[in-house]
């Protein structure tokens, strides 16, 4: 009976996920605290061609957007498929988690997750080639994310042990 009651109060779309930013400066406790208070969302699986304007339009549906920071390839300084969306209030960010996460932008299902807060430097991909890590190793062909993953494009790299 009590499990069901919990289900009634549940708001699972707003829960913090398992992901933790490995580059976060601080301990796990501090990170979780920030995530639970944050007004900022990480948005992933964007097309490289998705513009700030499109992100604004979609995410404005859950509230006033304070700012958007488009994720960039560290080398090329071009969009590499993710961004941060910061709201003025937590409530608006929560509604984005409930109603924008898992829907489509530019025909792609996008994923949102809580972020501890934007800091300079975090707008860059952390993959070896400059983009996101996930684009280093994926095997599929995704025309909106530069085609094949880097590991496929550079087969020699599989044999390197670095």
């Amino acid at each position, binding site marked *: 009976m009590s499990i069901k009651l919990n289900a009634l109060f549940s708001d699972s779309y707003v829960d913090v996920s398992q992901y933790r930013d490995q580059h976060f400066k601080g301990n796990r406790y501090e990170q979780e605290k920030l995530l639970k208070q944050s007004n900022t969302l990480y948005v992933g699986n964007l097309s490289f061609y998705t513009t700030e304007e499109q992100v604004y339009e979609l995410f404005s*549906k859950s509230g006033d957007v304070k700012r958007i920071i488009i994720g960039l390839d560290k080398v090329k300084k071009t969009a590499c498929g993710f961004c941060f969306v910061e709201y003025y209030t937590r409530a608006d960010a929560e509604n984005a988690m*409930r109603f924008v996460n898992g829907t489509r932008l530019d025909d792609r299902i996008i994923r949102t997750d809580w972020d501890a807060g934007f800091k300079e430097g975090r707008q860059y991909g952390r993959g070896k080639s400059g983009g996101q890590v996930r684009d280093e190793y994926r095997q599929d062909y995704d025309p909106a994310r530069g085609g094949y993953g880097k590991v496929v494009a550079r087969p020699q790299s599989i044999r390197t042990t670095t």
Partner: protein
Amino acid sequence: MSKARLLPEKLTVYTTLVGLLNARNYNFGGEFVEAMIRQLKETLKANLYTEALYLVRFLSDLVNCHVIAAPSMVAMFENFVSVTQEEDVPQVRSDWFVYVVLSSLPWVGKELYEKKDVEMDRLLNQIDGYLKRRLKTHVPMLQVWTAEKPHPQEEYLDCLWAQIQKLKKDRWQERHILRPYIAFDSVLCEALQHNLPPFTPPAHTPDCQYPVPRVVFRVFDYTDAPEGPVMPGSHSVERFVIEENLHNIIKSHWKERKTCAAQLLSYPGKNKIPLNYHIVEVIFGELFQLPCPPHIDVMYTTLLIELCKLQPGSLPQVLAQATEMMYMRLDTMNTTCIDRLLNWFSHHLSNFQFRWSWDDWADCLAMDADKPKPKFVKEVLEKCMRLSYHQRIVDIVPPTFSALIPAEPIFFYKYQDEANSKCAGYAVAITVGNAIKNRASNEEILTVLKDVPNPNQEDDDDEGEGFNPLKIEVFLQTLLHLAAKSFSHSFSALAKFHEILKALTDCDEGKLHILRVVYEVWRNHPQMISVLVDKLIRTQIVDCAAVANWLFSPNMAHEFTRFYVWEILHSTIRKMNKHVQKIQKELEEAKEKLEKQQHKKDSGDEEDMERNSEDEDGQLEEQIERLQEKVESAQSEQKNLFLVIFQRFIMMLTEHLVRCETGSVDFNTPWYKNCIERLQQIFLMHHVTIQQYVGTLENLLFTAELDHHILAVYQQFCALQL
């Protein structure tokens, strides 16, 4: 008991359980009922009317479970209905008590009539008399469609009354509600019943905020679902119960869209009704509800997408059918609802690759561009473009629709090329542009700008500090041109040169002109105008009243019926409201802090008395005084904003009405419909805030001399809480 409140659609399951427990243990039943009565009193005091409604319904179903004696329930209903005899109370108060009684009757009407038919008849007669004499001024403002065909948009009490009358005629035979207690009748009928204590509704106080009246949304009838089970008629009580339950499911699960969709689709008794049609109708009913939907708009979009995922073979078709029907009835649809419809539709399409049978809507191509249908399609395409890009829109519509495709969102730079070199200020524009590119300081740029002649001045005896529209134009056009690449670029530019912009727009005319320039350069990119205006307000380069004046100015008259204009205006009002709320909250918090500190003093703690010196208190008191001033000033700004907006509306509408009258022309043009409904929209969307300023509005603006068409809108608004 909290479970019953949380899952009202499962009410009869819980009442059965309570009934069985009561049969076993009389005291349990007594305590339970007492607790419910206490809760009812509390919820009424706390303005939680939806909660209170379910509590009363729960209590009435407990009659069916032999927990509560029917006569005492009738007595409670009699007390509720006697509220209609109270004098000098808002109509919405007696409305609610009548609604509570009527909406419990599908559950308990049969039982009450069997035990106390004379009293019940008297009760219903009283209600009938009340319904006949109550005012319905509010109805036009709350109707989604103004037309009576194909489905009348009925006032909610009228509709419920018709449903209860029909139920009575059918001798209270109600077949839709699941009644588990029937299976346990042999046990339950042995139970001892309790009498409800006499319950007097709490008296009316000025703090009471009763629910706002509603209009019942109808888009389907049995002819629309030709195959399968028949849809219950609009005056059947089944329709009421189904809709109540579906609304309750959404209320319980709106935060979890997958659960919500699953719960809706697994509605008990779904095989006997065209469930998909009911679901779609209930969802749109909420989305289009006036004044406001019960939940955030985007929730409904996402919920419908989930439903389409779960029923891919049937739900999308029903949704398409509903969309088609609403398109056909756009001519009489309330403008606010058209806004919500096009927002929903464009967002929905963006999740389905913008696939739509546009050719089905080719009829709109032959109409004037200002008619509702082509206007709707144009605004939808513009919204679709915001979620994608211009070429995509060109690709998704047939070539015949090219006139309705939005303009390409390009920047218009006045000082673009040599051809414009004769333009006043051209040379300075080039210099400023270079200065910015070379990272000149603000002082250097201001010096360059000094060279801009002021077309407003006749001679040079002035210091040149007055409002200089050309200076603003030269600087802002050039700055925005350099920053045109993206929103972020433009925001950075505004931030970097905030000082200069502030200096240039020190007066009201300056603020107005800045907005004009923004429009000039970005007139093909309404979304950019919107975000820039937002930033200009937030960085206090322009104020809210300036934005309102600009939108209503003759320069913007040709854009007056475009959706983005109203997006900007409502966003501006919201910012103003949030600002006031924020400072009010700060004031509350400071006051609470002071109270706490004074409590500590009064508690006589020697140590603390030493430390909590007069200083701290004094500081707090000072802070409170400052905040008080801030609140008053913010409220004054807020009041002024609404006054400006209403004044402008009145001027425009009066002018139009007078012109039409003298020219003996019908005043009810598409422009007029749009304008009057936009005025309604201001009242509807901000009715709680505007309530505070009713006195001023009535004295200054909405006086008896006003044209009755305009005054009617004001009176309808007042009727929402009358």
